[in-house]
């Protein structure tokens, strides 16, 4: 009761209000603060590598930290190869699924599919990695005749699977945002349902679909655990045509695998953080590109 009389008296300062406001403000600023701290820490630990080791070495083709060789190029190319392949797999699957869920599936099927896709997003990556090791890797080895099943391609399949829920949900939202009148206009011109979808609805949702792919890409390139489990982790240059079906090592897997056994403050330690910086720059570029496509609202002529 005392509380009520206290706060209803306007001559007293409203301490409850003040406390809540300050707490929220503190929490908000602290989360921003953490991001800044992480960034600062990453720079402090990683930047030295760029002068401790000559650029020739750092951007060389051999990553043998025990011999003082810190060539990050195979790792960068490894990450790119796995990620790009993953997106090439996930993009058609994801967009097709989104089109099916939003445009084709009857209501009851949509009600089942949407929660299932959301559950897919919640599967821990280590579980997917395990699935990749025990099921996908043997398949890759036997079907493709690769010497080992732990290849870039195996990683790409698992990553594609992980990026799918993101791509599907975002692409589906984009399709949903296309006004019904577009569909009417397509149909009224004698287009079949498929022609209307592929020539009118999907192009109208193009910017949202690009965003979906960007977000999926961002998720895929930063993924560590599943990739480490299924790609074989050999830091070789993926330059030959069969590289996709050979082991590969990504930037994330390198950091995760080696960070545990490195001496703090050593060149190797700085090199791992240096990889972190490179990764950060790449994901930043991807996210910024996605943000630009989101905020650059296309003019939908005449429609509000």
């Amino acid at each position, binding site marked *: 009761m005392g509380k009520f009389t206290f706060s209803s008296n306007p001559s007293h300062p409203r301490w409850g209000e003040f406390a809540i406001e300050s707490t929220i403000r503190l929490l908000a600023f602290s989360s921003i603060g953490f991001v800044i701290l992480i960034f600062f820490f990453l720079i402090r630990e990683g930047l030295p590598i760029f002068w401790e080791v000559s650029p020739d070495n750092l951007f060389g083709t051999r990553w043998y930290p025990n011999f003082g060789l810190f060539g990050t190029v195979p790792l960068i190319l490894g990450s790119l190869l796995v990620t790009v392949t993953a997106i090439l797999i996930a993009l058609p699957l994801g967009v097709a699924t989104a089109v099916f869920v939003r445009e084709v599936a009857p209501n009851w099927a949509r009600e089942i599919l949407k929660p299932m896709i959301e559950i897919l997003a919640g599967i821990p990556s280590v579980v997917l990695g395990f699935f990749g090791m025990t099921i996908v890797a043997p398949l890759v080895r036997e079907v493709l005749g690769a010497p080992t099943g732990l290849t870039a391609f195996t990683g790409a399949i698992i990553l594609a699977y992980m990026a799918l829920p993101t791509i599907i949900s975002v692409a589906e939202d984009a399709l949903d945002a296309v006004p019904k009148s577009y569909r009417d206009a397509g*149909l009224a011109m004698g287009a079949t349902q498929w022609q209307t979808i592929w020539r009118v609805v999907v192009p*109208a949702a193009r910017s949202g679909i690009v965003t979906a792919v960007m977000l999926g890409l961002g998720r895929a390139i930063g993924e560590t655990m599943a990739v480490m489990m299924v790609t074989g982790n050999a830091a070789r240059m993926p330059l030959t045509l069969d590289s996709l079906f050979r082991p590969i090592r990504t930037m994330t897997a390198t950091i995760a695998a080696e960070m545990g056994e490195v001496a703090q403050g050593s060149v190797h330690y700085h090199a791992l953080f240096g990889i972190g910086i490179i990764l950060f720059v790449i994901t930043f570029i991807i996210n910024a590109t996605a943000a630009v496509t989101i905020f650059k609202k296309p003019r939908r*002529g*005449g429609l509000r």
Partner: protein
Amino acid sequence: MEPKIRFQNVSYFYGDRPALRGVTLDIPPNAITVIFGPAGGGKTTLLRLINRLNDEVEGTRMTGRVLLDGQDIYTPGVDVPLLRRRVGMVFALPLPLPGTVRENILYGPKLAGVRDQARLDEILERSLRLAALWDEVKDRLDDPASRLSGGQQQRLCIARSLAMEPEVLLLDEPTSGLDPISTGKVEEALQELKHQYTIVIVPHSVQQAARVADYAAFFLMGELVECQPGRDLFTTPRDRRTEDYITGRFG
């Protein structure tokens, strides 16, 4: 003259709610027929029955027959995309599709399988001229359609429908979003077009109905109250309700 479109005792329901009640109406060829009346009278539904666009709406029911050139368009086996090429439609909001002016116009013909470039160019110019838009956009054919003004976009949509060389043109409040000058241009274009096409229009005002109507049909709550040549209906309506509406006593 044989009617182009005939409604024979057509009733239409969204769930349990009736939108049209026992409508029997003949629409003559090569003339502008105006479908007008207060909101919720079933005008748009009537239009969307002619090109079967309401097939896309779930939970609807229809009785009666709709004939185009004497053929029931709701019998099984009717090629619906082909029907929609014969019956073009223009909507209330100008709705350019993604892409350029040229792509918008040639969308329909390309779907229909026209590939010959000379033929496509011919269709492009002819449709834009018919919609009274050619002179304004002939130098901007490869600009995005969304960059045209509202009035130009609406005439673009008319041209897009004409590019498929339809027999019937349905217009659902085509000038509701336009200023008076653009409205005038669209109405002028319609007066030219009616010599070649059967035009059915839901106007956005009684004044527009009176301006463009060769024939006028007054709808009230899903019922066809009366249908007469426009000149007669707007001067000497037979039904009291029509008179009340056109003189502004209700509506």
